[in-house]
């Protein structure tokens, strides 16, 4: 095996190694920049045709306009959904500030995706519940669904 052949094999191998590394980087790059899709395109990506066929399901029931505290020491307090995302907790920056010992500083958040509203636990100590189920991921909220946080119960209202 001549010196030149060995040299070429070495260069070729290093080239393969770097081609691999750079393509891995480019996949990550497209993942970083290509993952956020505007809302109208989402339906196309998800291919969920069923949702589009229904003519605005929530319009018949009415669109929620605010979150209301229905039970607990802060009952009656409300926050307009216009200011979404709405932070719920004991902290000073929370849109709905609860004086409840079982509530974390930044407990949960209510935010919109299209015409759907989601509640998401922000890693609180005592958890956020719908019924008896502790939320582990963002969950869709509909009008009147009762969300329990500590000793407080909140719901979406028209």
């Amino acid at each position: 095996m001549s010196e030149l052949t060995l040299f070429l094999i070495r260069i070729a191998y290093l080239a393969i190694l770097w081609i691999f590394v750079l393509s891995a980087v480019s996949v990550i790059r497209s993942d970083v920049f290509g993952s956020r899709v505007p809302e109208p395109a989402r339906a196309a990506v998800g291919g969920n045709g069923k949702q589009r066929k229904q003519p605005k399901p929530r319009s018949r029931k009415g669109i929620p306009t605010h979150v209301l505290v229905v039970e607990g020491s802060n009952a009656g307090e409300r926050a307009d959904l216009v200011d979404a995302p709405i932070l719920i907790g004991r902290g000073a920056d929370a849109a709905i500030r609860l004086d409840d010992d079982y509530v974390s500083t930044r407990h949960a958040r209510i935010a919109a995706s299209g015409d759907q509203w989601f509640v998401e636990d922000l890693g609180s100590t005592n958890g956020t519940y719908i019924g008896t189920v502790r939320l582990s991921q963002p969950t869709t909220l509909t009008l009147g669904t009762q969300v329990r946080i500590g000793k407080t119960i909140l719901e979406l209202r028209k």
Partner: protein
Amino acid sequence: MSAISPVRAVQQVTVFRSRRGAELVLVVLALAVGIGAYAAVGLGVDGHVPPDILGYGGWLAGLIIAAHITIRIVAPYADPVLLPVVAALNGLGLAVIHRLDLTRGDTSFASKQLFWMTVGVGLFVATLVFLSDHRALQRFTYTAGLAAVVLLLLPLAPGIGHEVNGARIWIRAGGLSFQPGEVAKVLLVISFAGYLVLHRDALALAGRRVAGVDLPRGRDLGPILAMWLVSLLVLVAQRDLGSGLLFFGLFLVMLYVSTERAGWLVVGGFLFVAGVMATYVLSGSVGFLTHVRNRFDIWLDPMAYYDRTPGSFQLVEGLFGMSWGGLIGRGFGEGRPTRVPYAESDFIMAAIGEELGLTAVMAVILCYGLIVERGLRIALISRDSFGKLMAMGLAVSLALQVFTVIGGVTRLIPLTGLTTPFLSYGGSSLVANWVIVALLLRISDHARRPLPDLSVPDDQDSLNTQVMRLP
């Protein structure tokens, strides 16, 4: 550490594509890296392509494709980059080990490594298939912690414990030797993550303020501190400095991330520096610590210890090899990496540096960087705190391990014995690291999966009666 919401703004929503096609392309490239290295080794050392290239390449390709298909079936939204990068590193490691075998003539590390890789991929597939939700691991918080401590203690037990080069970190049963510390690493991450998820608010908020520093309550910190102290003491007793350093760093970073308090890093860094200084000063008199002192002296002036025992022969030969390799290396078969003792395990980076040069070393380090970056990215996008902490812990443990071993080989920091993940010869390390990748992929599959549609079907009934649907 607040959760990254999939609902960033009203108009924008993050939708991850499954990217399995991209993964397949990368897997093919990774196989080219692995099998190409094997062919280049044959050409460089023997002058012809190895006759068993088809069998070897087929076996390697079969394993990786099997892993890829498993991901396609059971974790379709998992990260597309992790498997190919790991496959490329493993293939390159196998080829370099094979090259060392060829020169030595009397060792067969490569075939053993291929066997362990098969076991590793088997466990990788099993983990993905049987662990459909990583949150199930949270139930085993204390079991995992106890198991980790028991595993770390096993090598000290008479009979099965086994000492290699002064470090008593092996167990031997039925002809196979195993390093339980590698498995303990994974278990400790699970245990720390499970504990910290439940207690991080208490750790961060409850407690007394002493001299301007908020101290957490003893009952919150106690269990985790005890677990960590036991593992450190065991490691000191076994003289396994590398793993001790790894566990210390891991503990510190996980505590910092879960409580969002930079004070942990300051206190931990201070403790570390103080410990090192004390060790260095005391090392003249205490028996065990001379070992540490020796490592330090070698690090500061390797040439002075070249021909002593315990000396720096291994480190200096590794440095000679890397400098001889230069920018593009000698080429497979043209260098003399077998001059370095343990070139196939701790010093495999020196062998790569000698025969493939700085260019390949940079590529390898970049591959590790990609694995760690993906791990941290998974932690960022994960929706549950346990998954976040676990992904973060696994990524950080890999990062610390790579830093410790490559830093040691290149004389950036004092040398401590650790394996280079996926490259080094060593069954336990390889198997444990494949399981780590499986866990990361499982968490990332959960994190990237689109949200299930949980909205209440809009039928006429819901106008009159409000029925609460549970998710």
